[in-house]
């Protein structure tokens, strides 16, 4: 019952082959995961453990770093800021993006879609610099408005591109049937298309949230003390104090954890999302 085209070398020892492949894959994966391990370990280390050479692997864990981050450094406020900005960006991205995606998918407005792609290719600073100058003149820096507006530059393309795919996957006949039954185009969009694309809305919304949450360059320029987001806050650890690596590791862990959890939910779409936007160099 051996399959006709089993590789000759693998005959009889597929178990060994699989084992070796597994080990090889583990060896490849370790360097990619090690920084996460080091971050998590560091977040429980005391400052003195960081100075040790060779580096310590076993140590008495402390929660002092996390206390420092929330009590001495007000990360609670920054977490709220990051959440508000990411949530508002995602909400407006979906609000503008879904009808836009529907139009591209159903009425072939492809020129519009190409424009969005151009936005993905353009350097982020080309958008940031004019916005910065305008916001300074309008005295709007250090507002949620400035952050949400500029974050939309990269989240709107993600949502549009992903939603186009999801809407195109719905057979037109379903909407047409609804319209024959007296439903308007808008009714078809809200009552037929939206419920059917809920998984897509969730996926593109979560990706948009992640990319807004992760954004540093736009936020470091436009956020002030009152609207400082987490990536900006963690960056300032490098500047102000003599580098306190323990709190820095703890802060990095706190920022990264929600992203990783969200990313696991939408893992199927991450590459697509990064291809459509999200990187703001």
């Amino acid at each position: 019952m051996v399959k006709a085209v089993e590789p000759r070398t693998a005959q009889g020892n597929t178990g060994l082959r699989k084992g070796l492949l597994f080990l090889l894959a583990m060896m490849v994966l370790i360097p990619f995961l090690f920084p996460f391990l080091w971050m998590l370990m560091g977040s429980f280390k005391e400052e003195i453990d960081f100075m040790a050479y060779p580096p310590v692997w076993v140590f008495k864990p402390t929660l002092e770093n996390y206390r420092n981050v929330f009590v001495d450094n007000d990360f609670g406020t920054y977490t709220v800021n990051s959440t508000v900005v990411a949530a508002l960006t995602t909400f407006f991205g979906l609000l503008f993006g879904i009808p836009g995606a529907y139009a591209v998918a159903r009425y072939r407005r492809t020129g519009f879609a190409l424009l969005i792609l151009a936005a993905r290719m353009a350097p982020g600073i080309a958008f940031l610099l004019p916005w910065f100058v305008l916001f300074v003149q309008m005295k709007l820096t250090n507002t949620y408005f400035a952050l949400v507006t500029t974050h939309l530059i990269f989240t709107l393309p993600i949502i549009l591109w992903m939603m186009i795919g999801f809407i195109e996957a719905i057979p037109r006949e379903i909407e047409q049937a609804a319209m024959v039954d007296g439903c308007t185009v808008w009714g078809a969009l809200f009552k037929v298309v939206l419920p059917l694309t809920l998984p897509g809305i969730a996926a593109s919304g979560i990706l948009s949230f992640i990319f807004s949450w992760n954004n540093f360059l736009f936020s470091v320029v436009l956020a002030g003390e009152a609207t400082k987001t987490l990536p900006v806050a963690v960056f300032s650890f490098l500047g102000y104090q003599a580098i306190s690596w323990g709190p820095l590791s703890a802060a990095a862990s706190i920022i990264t954890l929600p992203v990783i959890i969200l990313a696991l939910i939408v893992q199927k779409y991450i590459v697509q999302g990064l291809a459509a936007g999200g990187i703001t160099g």
Partner: protein
Amino acid sequence: MAGTLESNSLWDRFLGACDRKASLLMPLPSMIVTALLMIFPLGYLLYMSLHDWLLIGGKSAEFVSLNNFVALWSDGRFRGALNRTGIFIVLGLIIQIPLGLAIAVLFNEHFPARGLMRTLLLLPMVATPVAMALIWVIMLDPNSGVLNYFLSWFGVESIAWLSDVDVVVPALVMVDTWQWTPMVALICLAGLSALPLEPFEAAMIDGANAWQRFWRLTLPMVWPTLLVAILFRFIDLLKVIEHIYVMTRGGPGFASETINVYNFLMGLFYYRVGYGSAISVVIFALVLGASIILIRARRVTW
């Protein structure tokens, strides 16, 4: 009674118009937002690039036509940044594309826990880049960093990763490789898993070994996908900035300053927004040119 009927029919007419014009109305909000968010600032960027404009100090902008671009042409710091960006692109592509493809080929095989491992491979590219860049700063510390410790096992002496002008660019390429090779791998993996099985089965019957199958079958067939990965990596390396800004701010000196970092510092750190805009325009042109060439290349191979 008549009034309600009247308003009803007006409302109906409005609804009917909305319905008939839906193909125009639906993209309208996102079109207005896109125009405001993206097209308008690009126009304003061009306007700014023609001015001598310092945002601090109260001096107003002065129209200088193309002077900023002329100055840019003979700006040694910009030239240096341009060269360094070229090194970033070349080093990054040479390492990340083959490595990503190799990882994709490996993860396309069948072995236990493959799905979980593929998922874990996603983590470097979704984790908050600033946070991870700072963890890399800790790991690359010349005195107590864990990377130097690992290298000491092999007799390598302590390397000053981020403060040695000769090492800083390769060190930053390494961090970029850590973050974005998974992206290359996962794009290639999608291409590999879509390949038909028949040619491979035929080749195996004909006695082709794994090496021959890779070079004669896998690589040509996955090439269009690989070009997509090259396109994205090329453009993102051309714009590389974030982890450089966080880890070295372009230093020591200007040793790791790429065009985008220079652009950022000039416009948003020194507030020379006119000159900074001119740099942005040049980067935009470079990215556009690169995109067009690479998209052409992709079409030719198809």
